[in-house]
């Protein structure tokens, strides 16, 4: 367990939209996750619920939590897919700490 670090990544989805993630992690768990971009999600407020579900999870649980979120909630996505959310968060995790 270390000091929480803010990490960021952008991912341009091939033939899709741009998604960005800003995450704070303490070495084992995601402390905070913010997802941004020009994609479409109906209902829009579901993004807050997704970010809430990701809070405090172990990094290893990422794929499972995202998949579960989209299978249990009635959410429509355009220009993005559940695996793109996973991908951008993984990219952020691989980044060096941002200023």
């Amino acid at each position, binding site marked *: 367990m270390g000091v929480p670090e803010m990490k960021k990544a*952008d*991912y*341009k989805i*091939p033939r*899709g*939209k*741009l998604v*960005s993630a800003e995450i704070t992690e303490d070495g084992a768990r995601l402390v905070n996750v*913010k*997802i*941004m*971009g*020009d*994609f*479409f*999600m*109906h*209902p*829009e407020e579901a*993004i807050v619920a997704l970010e809430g579900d990701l809070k405090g999870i172990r990094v290893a649980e990422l794929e499972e939590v995202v998949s579960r979120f989209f299978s249990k909630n009635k959410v*429509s996505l*355009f*220009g993005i897919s559940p695996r793109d959310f996973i991908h951008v968060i993984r990219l952020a995790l691989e980044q060096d700490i941002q200023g």
Partner: protein
Amino acid sequence: MRTGLTEVWRLIDMRVEDAPTQMAIDEAIASARRREETPNTVRMYRWNPSAVSIGYFQSVAKEVNLDECEKQNVDVIRRITGGGAVYHDYNGELTYSFVAPQNDPKVPKDIMASYELICGAVVKGLTHLGVESEFKPVNDIIAGGKKISGNAQTRRHGVVLQHGTVLIDTDIEKMFQVLRISDAKISDKMIKAVEDRVTNIRRYLDRDVSFMEARNALVKGFEETFDVELVPGELTEYENQLVEDYHIRYSSHGWVFQR
């Protein structure tokens, strides 16, 4: 000419307002439509002062050059719809909005199909001006390979709200001063000059097109696509009350800067 057989929808015509008011009006109509307080409605409008609207999920800091906006007196607002950042140039951009229940027989239940239909009304309108364009999923309309219109839809409580921008004579240089375009987005499309991705009606036709000429063409496009007559009307008292309420939220720092 009204035949008595054609369905009538309301047209809220060419209101010029600031960004929070325009977004509050769109949401107010959608809310009122849900309560059956109001008819299906199409709006044509302009933004004064000019404004940048960002999508619901976008980050202000990532998408908007705030210093440049302040210097050029450009408002910044967050929409309730997803999608990308748009520069609404008072002198060169026309915005439309469309509100109808999602169970209206004229509105496809499928979201992508409804995008295609509503954007089809814009495409038809552009055809009347001599602009050959096409819908490009998810939410763009392109002419000559370049974007000429961006569109965004939300569905809340059984109502479809779609609004979109039509570039008439937008100052594209200024557009790219107030918007930040990410390197990731540019490199993916392998385009060196971002300006090459966007066009407007004036550039396409190489002639001046007035707001009224564009408005007339778009109104015709909507009327033909939905087989309705758009009759100018006003907001109801209930809608005006909602506009006042929503205006407070749209103008708030907490709303605009939430991401």
